[in-house]
């Protein structure tokens, strides 16, 4: 492995890790807001207790998101300073505006909400958590716009003097059609993760307190609805990507030859993949273009086309990685949605879920988390060799002078610290979920005046 590989690996590790916590923060903020509004509307105490529980899960998750997100903000300069110089005009304002517009909102109002239960008028207090939820969505939209630029560069011109990218329209940058398709897909995926966590906590604690039943069913609904939305938005995103990055989708299907009425391979083996494949006829053409007879471009043709357009070199991403991450993303995500539906069905009208199901459901958050991770690995590795599609390559973005040993040291540091944080976070979530829902039931003699800090 050379310094480029190490730096890519480091970017992947810290970004994937950051993204364990981001979808949770997005969905838990929205859930807390929803539960608090439900409490205000219905005046049912159990909604208040659930709001506080979700709030605690949110604040510890958000903290990890903040400190790992900070690393993201520095990453572009640390390991990818050539990229930062070249795209400074596009990326800089995007990150700066995300920080000023969204991140400040989230951090400040989350603290106001969490510590403000007995200091703020009820309406303002509720508004605080709604603002947090809106802030997380804004953040996601702006950051995804920056990523969408790398997939489908828009709103830029290359400066004839410096040769660097210049931003021509911020609105156009934000409304990149890849972003408009990726944002709903990403948010749906986030809803699944949050839903799965609530389902897991609810099922795990149901025996201790029947009030957790609401949490479990809410979580199951969110997992199912998020799953359905992920499928629909994913279908649309796939069509957009077929249009702007045909190579990515061809790699996802390991489709070498341009084919009309292309089949979808559910499973394939072989060295360059499909020597043996289990195929569903026409499905790929339907997925990619919405028409069973449509022609889907193959890898070989695209390679020839890119070589003619951009000069000699390989423009083919790692086929098995693209092929399998794409399938794992879909398969695991749909399994999670199915389990959510199964739980809802087996607990309909107050029925008891079977024991085998309740024993395994506490592990369900792993599924959508894995699906999200595979989705991002697919999105980013199948963009290779480009750092911004069609403009410059990943190899051109790395910081000049950076050495493998420097990156190995920093990667080791991130791995150790992030690993410890993950373990502590998991134990803390378990501890928080184990607390009795209504404080009065457990410690009536010792009322908690302010949040312990």
């Amino acid at each position: 492995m050379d310094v480029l590989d190490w730096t890519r690996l480091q970017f992947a590790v810290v970004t994937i890790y950051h993204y364990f916590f981001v979808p949770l923060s997005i969905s838990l903020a929205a859930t807390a807001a929803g539960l608090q509004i439900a409490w205000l509307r219905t005046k049912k105490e159990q909604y208040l207790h659930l709001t506080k529980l979700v709030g605690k899960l949110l604040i510890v998750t958000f903290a990890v998101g903040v400190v790992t997100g900070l690393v993201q903000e520095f990453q572009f300069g640390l390991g990818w300073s050539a990229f930062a110089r070249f795209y400074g005009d596009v990326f800089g304002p995007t990150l700066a505006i995300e920080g000023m517009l969204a991140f400040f909102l989230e951090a400040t109002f989350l603290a106001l909400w969490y510590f403000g239960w007995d200091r703020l008028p009820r309406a303002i207090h509720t508004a605080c958590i709604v603002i947090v939820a809106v802030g997380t969505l804004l953040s996601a939209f702006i950051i995804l716009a920056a990523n969408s630029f790398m997939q489908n560069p828009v709103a830029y011109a290359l400066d004839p003097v410096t040769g660097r990218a210049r931003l021509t329209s911020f609105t156009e940058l934000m409304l990149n059609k890849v972003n408009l398709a990726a944002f709903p897909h990403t948010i749906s995926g986030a809803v699944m993760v949050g839903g799965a966590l609530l389902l897991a906590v609810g099922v795990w604690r149901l025996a201790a307190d029947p009030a957790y039943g609401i949490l479990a069913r809410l979580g199951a609904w969110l997992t199912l609805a998020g799953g359905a939305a992920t499928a629909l938005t994913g279908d649309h995103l796939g069509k957009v990507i077929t249009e702007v990055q045909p190579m990515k989708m061809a790699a996802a299907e390991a489709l070498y030859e341009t084919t009309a009425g292309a089949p979808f391979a559910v499973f394939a083996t072989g060295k360059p993949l499909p020597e043996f494949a289990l195929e569903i006829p026409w499905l790929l053409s339907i997925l990619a273009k919405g028409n069973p007879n449509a022609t889907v471009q193959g890898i070989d043709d695209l390679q020839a086309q890119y070589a003619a357009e951009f000069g000699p070199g390989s423009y083919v991403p790692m086929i098995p990685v693209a092929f399998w991450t794409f399938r794992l993303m879909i398969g695991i995500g749909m399994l999670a949605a199915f389990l959510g539906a199964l739980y809802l069905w087996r607990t309909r009208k107050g029925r008891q879920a079977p024991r085998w199901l309740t024993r395994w459901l506490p592990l369900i958050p792993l599924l959508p988390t894995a699906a999200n991770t595979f989705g991002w690995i697919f999105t980013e590795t199948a963009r290779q060799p480009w750092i911004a599609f069609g403009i410059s390559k990943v190899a051109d973005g790395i910081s000049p002078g950076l050495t493998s040993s420097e990156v190995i040291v920093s990667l080791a540091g991130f791995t150790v610290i992030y690993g410890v944080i993950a373990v502590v976070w998991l134990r803390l979530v378990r501890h928080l979920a184990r607390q009795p829902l209504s404080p009065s039931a457990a410690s009536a003699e010792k009322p908690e005046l302010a949040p312990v800090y």
Partner: protein
Amino acid sequence: MITFWFSVVVLAWVLFFVLEGFDFGVGLLGPVLGRDDHERGAAVRTIGPFWDGNEVWLVAAIGVTFAAFPAWYSALLAGLYLPMVLLLLLLAVRGVALEFRGKGDGPRYRRRADIALALSSLGIVLVWGALLAAFVRGLAIDAGGDVVGGGFARTVGPVLTPAAGLGSLAALYAALLLGATFLALRTSGPVRRRARTLAQWLGTGGAVALLLLGLGTGSVVVLIAAVLAFVAGLLARTGREALAFAATAVGVAGSVVAVFTSHGSVVLHSTIDPAYALTRDAAAATPQALELLTWAGVLILPGVLAYQVYSYWVFRRRVASERVPS
């Protein structure tokens, strides 16, 4: 336009260093000034609602630096790679220790969180001080803005100089004084008393050291800092805690401004050849990008400042560190 954005960048860094400065100071002092679990909890609670919003000033500062001066951002971060990574790791430990402290179970867990908080805060302050000193000295950048050299010394070397050590000491001092005056201002009971005493000693003792340093180097900035430290100590002694904190904050703000403007229109000095130095104009983004930023800044930042002030106002009540007899 470029000068305006340079001022905004400096302002963002000033706000970060002042606001997180007292956070760091409290993180350092809380576990020392608090004699038991309850008192330490009170100390940490003074920054509980604020640290996250303060830390976003780092996001804003680095973001605005990137947006307005991409070449500066690139040269600094890539050139100080390993110390910057260390800083980020320490910040990660600190943020998590702070936020996780009150959520876990039992005093032993909180004790561990306190130790992690104090040590990471200490590390952060020392690294920041060294980084700022290295920044004033300049880096070995070539004509392309990239730091030349080999091995770990390339990016670690600049923070292992005597000047960097002095920078670390100065930063530690500033954080301690900020933390002490902040704790004196924001708590009641034993923590407040101890913080006040510490602020007096730090103020007068530090003033003497700074005075000697200022006379030795002939630096006006250091002499002004000496006066401010003395005033802060005096104000803490007479119980004017808000003013003591303000005097310290002014001192820190002034020092940060002095650091960032130490080379005039050069934003990063080259230790190889002055001709390679990165100037404001060369580092700046295009006029279009700056115009976009101006609109965004004008529309967004006043609101940010307003709601952050609001949050300080909501949590203005002192945190009690004494035990209420039940």
